[in-house]
C-alpha cells in the first residue's frame, strides 16, 4: 500500500513499546530489592519511554499529508476512535513528561505513585483506542482477534525487552525473570502471527516475515542457554534484536497488507 503506512507502523509500535516500558518498570520497581540501583535505572527507563513516545508522535505527523491542520484531529471525540486515540496520546505525553520532571528534579511533594497510576491507565486506554481505530468493519483483513492481540503483545514485548536491557548487568536476578517472560511472549507473538496469516490466506514459509520469525525462534535457544548458565553473551543481543524486528515487521505486514475494499 502507500509508503506512509511505514510511519504509521512506527508510530503504533513505538507508542505501544513506550507504554510497555512504563508498565514493566512498575513491575520491576516492585520486585527489585536494590534501592539505589533501582532509582537510577527507573529514571533511565522513564526517559527512554518518553523519547519513544515523542518519536512515535513525530512519525504520526509524518503520515499526515497536511499536518498544518493537525490541531483539528481531536474535533470528533464523539464518534471517531482516531480522535480519542490522539487525545489519549497527548494526555499520556503530558503526564509522562510531568512524571519525568518530578523524578528528575526530585520533587518529593508529588508522590511517584500519584503519576504512575494515571500514566499506566492512560496508556492502557490509548492501546484500547488504537485497537478500535483499526478494527473497522471495512478492513476485514484486520477484523480478527489476532490483530488486537498483536498490539498487546507489542506492549509486553517492548516493555520486557527494554527493561531486560537496562537491568541485565545491574540487577541480574529479576533480569532473568524478564528474559523468560519475554521469550514466552515472543513464542505467543509468532504463533499469533501465523494465525493472522492463515486467517488472511497469505501464509508463506519463505518470505521476509516468516524467515525473521524462524530466525528469532532459533536464536532464542542459545540465548536461553546463556541465561541459565548465567553468562552474558552476544546471543542475548541477537535474540532480543531479532525478536523486536520480527514484532515490528509483523506490524508493517499487517498494516501494509490491509487494502481498501476496492
Amino acid at each position, binding site marked *: 500500500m502507500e509508503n506512509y503506512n511505514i510511519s504509521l507502523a512506527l508510530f503504533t509500535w513505538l507508542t505501544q513499546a513506550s507504554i510497555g516500558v512504563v508498565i514493566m518498570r512498575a513491575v520491576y520497581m516492585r520486585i527489585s530489592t536494590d534501592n539505589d540501583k533501582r532509582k537510577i535505572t527507573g529514571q533511565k527507563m522513564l526517559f527512554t519511554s518518553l523519547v519513544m513516545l515523542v518519536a512515535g508522535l513525530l512519525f504520526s505527523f509524518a503520515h499526515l499529508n497536511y499536518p498544518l491542520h493537525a490541531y483539528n484531529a481531536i474535533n470528533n471525540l464523539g464518534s471517531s476512535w*482516531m480522535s480519542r486515540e490522539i487525545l489519549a496520546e497527548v494526555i499520556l505525553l503530558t503526564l509522562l513528561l510531568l512524571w519525568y520532571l518530578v523524578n528528575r528534579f526530585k520533587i518529593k511533594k508529588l508522590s511517584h505513585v500519584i503519576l504512575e497510576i494515571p500514566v499506566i491507565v492512560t496508556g492502557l486506554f490509548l492501546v484500547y483506542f488504537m485497537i478500535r481505530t483499526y478494527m473497522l468493519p471495512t*478492513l476485514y483483513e484486520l477484523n480478527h482477534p489476532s490483530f488486537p492481540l498483536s498490539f498487546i503483545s507489542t506492549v509486553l514485548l517492548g516493555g520486557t525487552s527494554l527493561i531486560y536491557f537496562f537491568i541485565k548487568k545491574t540487577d541480574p536476578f529479576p533480569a532473568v525473570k524478564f528474559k523468560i517472560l519475554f521469550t514466552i511472549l515472543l513464542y505467543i507473538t509468532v504463533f499469533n502471527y501465523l494465525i493472522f496469516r492463515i486467517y488472511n490466506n497469505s501464509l508463506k514459509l519463505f518470505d521476509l516475515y516468516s524467515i525473521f520469525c524462524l530466525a528469532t525462534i532459533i536464536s532464542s535457544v542459545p540465548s536461553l542457554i546463556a541465561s541459565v548458565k548465567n553468562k552474558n553473551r552476544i546471543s542475548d543481543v541477537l535474540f532480543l534484536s531479532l525478536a523486536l524486528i520480527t514484532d515490528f515487521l509483523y506490524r508493517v505486514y499487517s498494516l501494509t497488507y490491509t487494502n*481498501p475494499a476496492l
Partner: protein
Amino acid sequence: MRRYGFYIDTANCTGCKTCQVACQDKNDLDPGLLWRKIIDVEGGEWVDDNGIFSTYPFAYHVSMACNHCSEPLCVDSCPTQAMHITDIGTVDIDQDKCIGCGYCTWACPYDAPRLNHRSGRMSKCNLCYDRITSNQNPVCVDACPMRALDFGYIDELKEKYGSNRSIFPLYSPALTEPNIVIRPHKDSLKASEKNAIIANREEL
C-alpha cells in the same frame, strides 16, 4: 431530509469509462485520481456435462463513486469532522479541516475518498454540488452514452427502478445504507468470490 442518489444499470453499462473521464474533466482531477471509477468484474467456471467440459465466462462493469450514504462510516470515523453531511444531504469534505490522514478511505466500503496529492488533502465526489443546485444532473450521468446512470431523489429512484443495492463485489449495503439503486447484470447473480475477480484492481 430527502437524500439524493444514483441509479446504476450494470446490465446496460459497457464499461466505456465516459462517466469516469467526464468527472475527471469537470473536476480537474490529476491522472489516477478517480472520484468515479469503473469496476471490471470478470469470472466464469467449467461445467462438467457428462464428461464434456464447457466454459461459462462472464464480464460486467459497475460504475461506482461516493454513494452519499445515509449512515456514512467516513463521517463517523473522520477525526477532524472535515467529512460532513451538507445542507442538501450529500457527503462532502471541508478542505479547511482535512489533515489528509486517509482514514476515511479505510472506513469507506466503496473506497470513495481519495488523496489529492496536489493539495495533500482528501477529495471525493461531491455529487456535482454546483450542478444539482442549479437543477442539472451530475456530469457523469449526463455523459453516459448508454444511459446506464440516472440521478434524483433516492425515494423517486426506488419507485422507478426498484430497491436493489447489492451486487458483487460491493459490501453489504446494510453497513452504510448507500443511496443507490442497482439494476444487476444477469451474470452478477452467479458471481461470487469463488468464481469472479475484479479484473482492473490496479487501475482503481
